[in-house]
């Protein structure tokens, strides 16, 4: 790999800062949700919603703060990431507010919990916290390579975060999945934060071990098989994700961590064998658990034939309702505020919020959303390509890969492409953990891309060009 290829991806030298592009895009990212907000109000009761100015100003303020901080502290950052995240966050707010207006969901909440609590104000608050964290990361993390120092601390932290929901009295069981903890009135999904923390560990660990894992191997049937002792870490990660699957009943989180590890391992070692081994292990794990754990099995059944067990199983009804919401939307959708995606009932504004997009914005809207997510992933991978240090490359690759897997698992789940798992669509779904964690994720990507695109005073040595260094005792 020569140094010319990666500099051609995102030019490092003399690159314009593109901050004004970002600002222009941000204006759209704020205006589109405001129009969407007005659209919902007009569709539901024919008047401009009263909270419109509040939400518009709130979102605009958050975007402005984000932009100013990026302008000051990460001037060479990728110009697309912040506007895309702002747009998704804004549209998420609109969708959640729209579902707050649903009589059916209000009655459902009153019946189940005694009172109806609108989710949109909370979501706006979480968005503010998310932006605060975004600002905090950019202010405190002057250079992402500092995180290398916390490799093993990150591992411990991630393990603790992942296992918290299993602590009695702290973890809560929501529809079978134990991925929540309850702290002082707030529900937190530690897995969302663990996603970032564990990426730090993987990146730091693999940066050090990549040579051993890559080179010390035997050739077998065309594949480079690693030495037995090098298999250790992957086996440990596999076991941990299986434990998550079995004890927390959460296929999504488990798949996410294992997938992220395999992606980073592959990037670090350039060995296809790891992909093959990873796929085989996850397949074995998934099949093994799916055939034994009742909760996972029900979801697999619901995925195979949602209408066959529609009347008898809640899992089937949920996925059936979700699929019907998508189908009822058709190509152009019913228009915001005019669909019946609230028929999904519980979690209509959380795990299933994408079904509302499907019904009210139609095929066109869903494809637009998928493309927006795709763009974020693409900017993330570009950041990884452009990063000059292996840690940054691995870190950005891991975060982008995990983000892509999460989109696939959630959207694929609600669209019936794969069995449903309890994860949330970043920024769209109601829930503080997801919004806050994803803003942190974007902040890290922005930090890495800023470092990558910043004109270097003296061109740094390309780590890839120094292959000879890597043979260590």
């Amino acid at each position, binding site marked *: 790999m020569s140094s010319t290829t990666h500099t051609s991806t995102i030019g490092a030298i003399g690159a314009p800062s593109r901050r004004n592009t970002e600002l222009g895009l941000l204006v759209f990212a704020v205006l589109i949700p405001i129009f969407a907000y007005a659209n919902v109000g007009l569709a539901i009761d024919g008047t401009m919603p009263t909270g419109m100015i509040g939400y518009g100003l709130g979102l605009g303020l958050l975007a402005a703060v984000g932009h100013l901080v990026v302008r000051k502290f990460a001037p060479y950052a990728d110009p697309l990431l912040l506007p895309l995240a702002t747009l998704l966050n804004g549209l998420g707010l609109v969708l959640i507010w729209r579902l707050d207006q649903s009589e059916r969901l209000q009655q459902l909440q009153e019946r189940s919990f005694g009172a109806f609590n609108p989710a949109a104000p909370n979501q706006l608050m979480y968005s503010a916290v998310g932006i605060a964290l975004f600002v905090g990361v950019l202010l405190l993390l002057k250079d992402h390579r500092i995180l290398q120092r916390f490799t093993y601390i990150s591992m411990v932290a991630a393990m603790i975060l992942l296992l918290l929901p299993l602590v009695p009295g702290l973890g809560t069981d929501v529809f079978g999945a134990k991925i929540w903890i309850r702290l002082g009135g707030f529900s937190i999904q530690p897995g969302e934060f663990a996603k970032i923390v564990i990426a730090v560990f993987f990146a730091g660990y693999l940066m050090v071990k990549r040579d051993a894992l890559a080179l010390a191997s035997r050739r077998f049937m065309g594949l480079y098989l690693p030495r037995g002792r090098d298999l250790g870490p992957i086996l440990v990660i596999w076991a941990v994700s299986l434990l998550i699957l079995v004890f927390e009943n959460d296929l999504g989180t488990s798949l996410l961590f294992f997938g992220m590890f395999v992606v980073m391992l592959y990037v670090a070692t*350039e060995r296809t064998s790891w992909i093959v081994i990873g796929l085989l292990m996850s397949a074995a794990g998934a099949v093994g658990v799916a055939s034994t754990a009742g909760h996972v099995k029900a979801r697999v059944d619901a995925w195979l034939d949602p209408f066959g067990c529609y009347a008898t199983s809640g899992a089937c009804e949920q996925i059936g309702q979700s699929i019907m919401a998508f189908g009822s939307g058709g190509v152009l959708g019913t228009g915001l505020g005019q669909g019946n995606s609230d028929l999904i009932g519980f979690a209509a504004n959380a795990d299933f919020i994408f079904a509302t997009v499907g019904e009210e914005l139609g095929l066109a809207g869903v494809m637009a959303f998928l493309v927006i997510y795709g763009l974020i992933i693409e900017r993330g991978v570009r950041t990884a390509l452009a990063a000059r240090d292996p840690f940054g490359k691995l870190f950005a690759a891991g975060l982008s890969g995990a983000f892509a897997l999460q989109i696939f698992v959630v959207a694929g789940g609600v669209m019936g492409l794969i069995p449903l798992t309890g994860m949330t669509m970043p920024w769209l779904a109601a829930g503080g953990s997801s919004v806050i964690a994803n803003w942190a994720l974007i902040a890290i990507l922005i930090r890495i891309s800023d470092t990558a695109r910043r004109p270097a005073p003296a061109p740094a040595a390309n780590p890839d060009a120094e292959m000879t260094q890597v043979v260590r005792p």
Partner: protein
Amino acid sequence: MNKPLRRIAMFCGLLVLALLIRDNWLQYVKADELRTHEKNRRVLIERYAQKRGDIIVDGKSITGSERTTGSDFAYKRTYRNGEMWAPVTGYASQAYGATQIESIEDGILTGNDDRLFFRRTLDMVTGKKKEGGNVVTTLNGAAQKAAFEGLGNKKGAVAAIDPSTGAILALASTPSYDPSSFAGNSKDDEKAWTDLESDKNKPLLNRALRETYPPGSTFKVVTAAAALEHGLYTDPDEKTESPLPWTMPDTRTELKNEGSYPSCKDGSLREALRISCNTVFGKIGSDLGKDKMRETAQKFGFNEEQFVPVRATASNFPTQMDRPQTALSSIGQFETAATPLQMAMVASAIANDGKLMEPYMVDQVQAPGLDVISKHAPKELSRPLSAENAQKLQDMMETVVNQGTGTSAKIPGATVGGKTGTAQHGIDNSEKPYAWFISYAKTADGSPVAVAVVVEDSDAHREDISGGGLAAPIAKNVMQAVLDGSK
């Protein structure tokens, strides 16, 4: 590390591509199937999302729509004078579906009909809400009222037809039900529905179209028509070969008249119809044979379902029977059974000089803007008898009203022809008999109305006169209402 990174980028692209393909599959390829899926509540929500179109009688709607709360169905059906009109409208309930006109014309009433497609598309572009169209019926409000109020607390049914077109003017059935009472999907609606369903008087049954009764002596009109048509007798006043007493062929059983009527012996058709001689008509049926009798009966519409457009049960004239059974069938007993609509058709064919028009009750279907989408054109169903024979039979039926068993149906200023009937039923005729009356009224411009009335288990005596006593006054009021309206 860039080569694997590029592959990872491609892999992520594939994940997004898979989602895009799946979404196209769901929202484009499978969209219609999912949109109209039987488990998709949106189908019902959409159905009740707007006011339902109305059913129109005499230019006024007999239905309406009402906003409902506490449910995701926005509108429910209401009915004006629901009990009276239930046999016409049927019901449209959020919980129990729709029947009869409400069901058959559902597409127009909800606005979903394909014939409204263009208009719907236009409305979508202009942002107008979808509306339902109207169904204009042929019914006559005054005649319907006379029929419904005439039946009163008694169990029975009335069907009235305009003989020249086949348009149904009245269609009453008692006891009836108010379709408003279970039009929603609340607990009250559920109770009203279960009460109606379990009611042993079967109020939900549309007796005018869906219940067959032994027509008794009213069927003698058909037998008389068969005798004339097949040339057994040609003159109403010609003496028939009718012994009294008459023993049915192949049996030792005498067919009895209801009382002592010496003039039944060799009585002319006119006389036999006037005093309703079982012996004369039994023998005619047996002389003609089952095939000729059946041929005439079927020309009048027997043995076939009618769609008006609501389905009316097929009336029955037996196909397999021996000679005594043929004799009994010819006086409206044995297995002969007819709906009130069928007997109204018999009277209307005779009144219309032998031409039987296809009965119908939906005159027009209108789009939401009152534009006519389709209009019914009267259609001839068959010619059970020649004009000449029809006039002979009219003459005989008029004698029945003027001097015979049907005198209570006389209307000053109009010519009325009719026939009474009392049908026995039950094992050994143990049950209370049905009182029948069929008739038509005529003015100088032809006949505007033919009617059939049946009253179930009233306190009818076993004499033929009861048809005249109970059913004929109802028929008279219905005819009077139509005559008053057409003046």
